[in-house]
């Protein structure tokens, strides 16, 4: 087994060409658990933690934001990133513990592609674009095409996830999750709501209630017909409740060691109702 520690994307891609079977590791908060418990015995590793290019973010001229795959969650929780993408800050703050948030990254969340990944519902609600780079090409993929199943994504073995681009919306956005306690918990159900007033769009994405993150297109359309999204008007409690019920109908949860399908469906409806109520009262 070898471990390569590249200092640039170019060096990382060279390392990947030299050892095509290598596993890419970012913060290590998922993969090291598998290695510690002997569920994974990698032949070769490429550690991306020292690639500074991946640890930066940029505000683009077209009112979008590109976040490098190596930016740790702790950087999204506060400061300018929190102002720009509040829902991502809220999601980041629910990830594990301060120790996990110092190490864990959005790139790792995308690489692992767990339906319970806390960053992913935000990326789905914002219609994020994932940036992938190989030795001789780069491509952009919608997050909706990137995540294809439970812990499965469309990344090719010769590609590195370099970052994501999200639009900077004009409207309320937030994230909520249910777990067995307040800190240090993997989602039982989660939801991200984002409103964009200029385009009169409301987006809601659900985590941990299906094989991929789920966008509730029917509930989104229904809600946009009930309220004037371009205005900051209060939303009727009955509308919020019905929105929750419709969102729950679009979830596809299963029973597993963390919860039951029945509870997840109920919880995700409550989360949607709470999010739209928070949006309405802000």
């Amino acid at each position: 087994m070898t471990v390569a520690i590249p200092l640039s994307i170019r060096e990382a891609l060279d390392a990947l060409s030299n050892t095509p079977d290598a596993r890419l590791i970012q913060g290590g908060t998922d993969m090291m658990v598998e290695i510690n418990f002997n569920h994974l015995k990698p032949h070769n590793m490429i550690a991306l933690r020292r690639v500074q290019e991946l640890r930066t973010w940029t505000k683009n001229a077209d009112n979008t934001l590109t976040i490098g795959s190596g930016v740790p969650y702790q950087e999204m929780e506060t400061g300018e990133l929190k102002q720009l993408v509040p829902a991502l800050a809220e999601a980041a703050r629910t990830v594990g513990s301060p120790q996990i948030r110092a190490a864990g990254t959005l790139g790792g969340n995308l690489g692992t592609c767990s339906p319970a990944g806390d960053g992913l519902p935000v990326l789905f609600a914002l219609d994020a674009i994932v940036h992938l780079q190989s030795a001789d090409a780069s491509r952009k993929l919608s997050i909706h095409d990137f995540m294809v199943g439970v812990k499965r994504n469309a990344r090719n073995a010769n590609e590195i996830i370099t970052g994501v681009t999200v639009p900077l919306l004009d409207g309320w956005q937030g994230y909520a999750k249910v777990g067995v306690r307040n800190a240090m918990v993997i989602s039982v159900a989660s939801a991200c709501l984002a409103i964009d007033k200029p385009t009169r769009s409301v987006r809601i994405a659900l985590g941990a209630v299906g094989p991929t993150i789920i966008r509730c297109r029917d509930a989104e359309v229904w809600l946009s017909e009930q309220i004037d999204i371009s205005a900051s008007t209060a939303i009727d409690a009955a509308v919020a409740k019905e929105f929750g019920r419709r969102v729950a109908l679009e979830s596809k949860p299963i029973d597993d060691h963390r919860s039951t399908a029945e509870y997840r469906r109920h919880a995700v409806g409550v989360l949607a109702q709470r999010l739209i109520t928070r949006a309405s009262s802000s």
Partner: protein
Amino acid sequence: MNEPLGNEMYTLHINGQDRPVRDAWVGESLLYVLRERLDLPGAKGACEQGECGSCTVLMDGDAVCSCLVMAATAVGSNIVTVEGLIEQNPTMAVTAQAITSQVTDVQQAFIEEGSVQCGFCTPGLIVAVHHLLDKNPDPTELEVKESISGNICRCTGYGRIFAAVEAVVQVRKANS
């Protein structure tokens, strides 16, 4: 980029010293390497999955779970374990007692406030509290709680730990 590391040797920078790691499988966690290869047993191994915080160390100024760091990937990083806190804080306010007993002000406060019962979580908490107070000398109650939310203690109920943090805040304020 240097040549990829194999199983022969790599060197970590820990508590201000270069520490060679020889003949080790490169997939080992930093926690394992600290405890089993470098004779630094301060960081404790409990859950091995980042849930308990008893293995917390500082890495390039961040508090991280050493069980979730592949040791070989920490080459070039500045690592501080609980054993190294006293050398790493030469300017911090330490009480006369703390100096004579070679413990930091946080450790001294844990002793005085009775914040230690079984003691297994203590080294991780000490590192986490140092990390908090070095960045935020006057934290709110919520900030203290959030900063140690990744350090699980099943004995104390946390009350005496919060008391120790408050005691350090007051001592450092008085000495600054």
